[in-house]
């Protein structure tokens, strides 16, 4: 239960082609993350899968049956919305019970499943409250609770954590990951936060203007970005992209070096530059270095490094970690 296949799916709003033809295979039990810049069609793609939006072309197959024409309720998918979309006049209990009630479950079954979900999500003490009396994280959990009671074949999350503060986000990220370990249900998760993507995903789908740029495990994308877009999008801080004679020296139009793959020295190295900004985080030091002829480069040095604005440093890329791209922006295989 829980495999989803998109075949030639496309979506057009009036004149605007939001998603050109797109194929995607999501296996049972996978945690798939859609990432991409704002407006690239992540939500649209998710809503197509959910059935909240009609496809303009192509087929959506869920668990082996063609679901293209099925209404949302019949697809056995559950969705957690960015705004949570809790029903404000219902108590937490009634919110969670709502899908069961709509499915015509008996009261005994409803009670059992609701208390089970509440236990899993730590909501037992809040069951009688209204959504507005809950914190953001609790609301999020209610929304998830409402999704899990139906035992759907897959969960769809649309940026569920974007309304939460940073600390809570880290927590909820872990909770959702744990939930996935427990339930082993397919999850599709939309975010534009690449840290969320890297930490949670079994498989990342990088989208750009409705096209899939690359699909792969987080480390695959990190190690072997297929093109410049993926290279720039995955990884934080961003990969340094260098063009010009330096790149030609490597036999490429553009080369990419991640900040963490730069070796720093105060005496010798390939590129000599001046520190413009040094960010001391304790665990890491981020350096912004102005290298004449190349431009501004980022370097990430583990631990503390007593450098300041104006200091002269030498940067050397790790040879085997240099990514090479051709004129079309595609990666050149070594």
């Amino acid at each position, binding site marked *: 239960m829980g495999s989803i296949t998109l075949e030639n799916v496309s979506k057009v709003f009036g004149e605007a082609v939001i998603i050109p033809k797109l194929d995607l295979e999501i296996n049972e039990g996978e945690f798939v993350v859609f990432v991409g810049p704002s407006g690239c069609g992540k939500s649209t793609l998710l809503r197509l899968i*959910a059935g909240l939006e009609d496809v303009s072309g192509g087929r959506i197959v869920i668990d082996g049956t063609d679901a293209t024409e099925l209404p949302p*309720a019949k697809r056995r998918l*559950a*969705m957690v*919305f960015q705004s949570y979309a809790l*029903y404000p*006049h219902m108590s937490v209990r009634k919110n969670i019970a709502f899908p069961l009630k*709509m*499915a015509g479950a008996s009261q005994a079954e409803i009670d059992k499943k609701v208390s089970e979900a509440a236990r899993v999500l730590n909501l037992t003490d809040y069951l009688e409250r209204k959504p507005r009396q809950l914190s953001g994280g609790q609301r999020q959990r209610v929304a998830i609770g409402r999704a899990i009671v139906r035992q759907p074949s897959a969960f769809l999350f649309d940026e569920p954590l974007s309304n939460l503060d940073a600390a809570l986000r880290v927590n909820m990220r872990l909770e959702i990951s744990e939930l996935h370990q427990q339930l082993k249900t397919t999850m599709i998760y939309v975010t534009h936060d690449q840290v969320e993507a890297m930490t949670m995903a079994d498989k990342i789908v990088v989208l750009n203007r409705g096209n899939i740029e690359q699909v792969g495990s987080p480390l695959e994308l990190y190690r072997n970005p297929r093109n410049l877009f993926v290279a720039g999008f995955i990884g934080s801080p961003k990969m340094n992209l260098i063009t010009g004679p330096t790149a030609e020296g490597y036999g490429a139009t553009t080369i990419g070096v991640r900040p963490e793959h730069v070796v720093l020295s105060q005496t010798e190295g390939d590129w000599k530059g001046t520190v413009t900004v040094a960010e001391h985080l304790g665990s890491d030091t981020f350096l912004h270095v102005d290298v004449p002829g190349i431009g501004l480069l980022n370097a990430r040095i583990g631990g503390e490094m007593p450098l300041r604005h104006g200091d002269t440093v030498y940067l050397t890329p790790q040879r085997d970690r240099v990514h090479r791209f051709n004129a079309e922006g595609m990666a050149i295989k070594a």
Partner: protein
Amino acid sequence: MATTHTRSHARLMMAPSVLLLFLWMIVPLAMTIYFSFLRYNLLMPGMEEYTGFLNYQFFLTDPAFFTALGNTLLLTGGVLLITVIGGILLALLLDQPIFGQGIVRILVIAPFFVMPTVSALVWKNMFFNPVNGIFAWLFKLFGAQPLDWLAQIPLLSIIFIVAWQWLPFSTLILLTALQSLDEEQKEAAEMDGAGFLSRFIYIVLPHMARAITVVILIQTIFLLSVFAEILVTTNGGPGIQTTNLTYLVYAQALLQFDIGGASAGGIVAVILANIVAFFLMRMIGKNLEG
């Protein structure tokens, strides 16, 4: 949160307007109460004298009073029923993406701009007239005996007229409420397996509860004192079948020239309105908080 300081300032600033409003209300009320204890008939000027509760006694024991009371409640309730249910249905309809939405909306709002006397006259002469009215024509078209609306079912006819006037108001308010419903909530309900009817009952209706409350409250205030429509159509008749409290007070004062009796009636109407308001608030005030 306001501090004590700012709050006392606020009180001070509000005092003049509150005082003005208070005077605005209390002077006519006090005058009416004063008149209601006098034997004061315009046909006998200068003969005013204190009569105690006699005016009230006459007014309350008048058989017309109970008929008028019943008519007032029927009229108010009937119009509320039609406008709230009709308003919800119209709002649902207007919320759909239909062709010429803007024009349709203006058309729906239009009756609200027509003066009550005018619309009542239009209804009386163009719709309800047993010889020339549209309804009569329609009845004849189907071979039925035309109904003399204002003679045979006068109160219901007036309910129709007033409901027609107030339907735009409730539609407008309910439509706004409907449009403020979060789209994602509807979609969430859809994903949760709720069909159209369930979505309406469990999501849309509770969301509109507050707006419905507002519609009922505001309309009740105006509907308890419907007058123009009755005056120009039935004159409270036939007999007293369409006499409501307002019309009864009018009849007392200006047809029988009994100011004292009319004042007593006015006070009774005020008390009645307050009783209705009290129960309304109790009943639906819950919807207004939070």
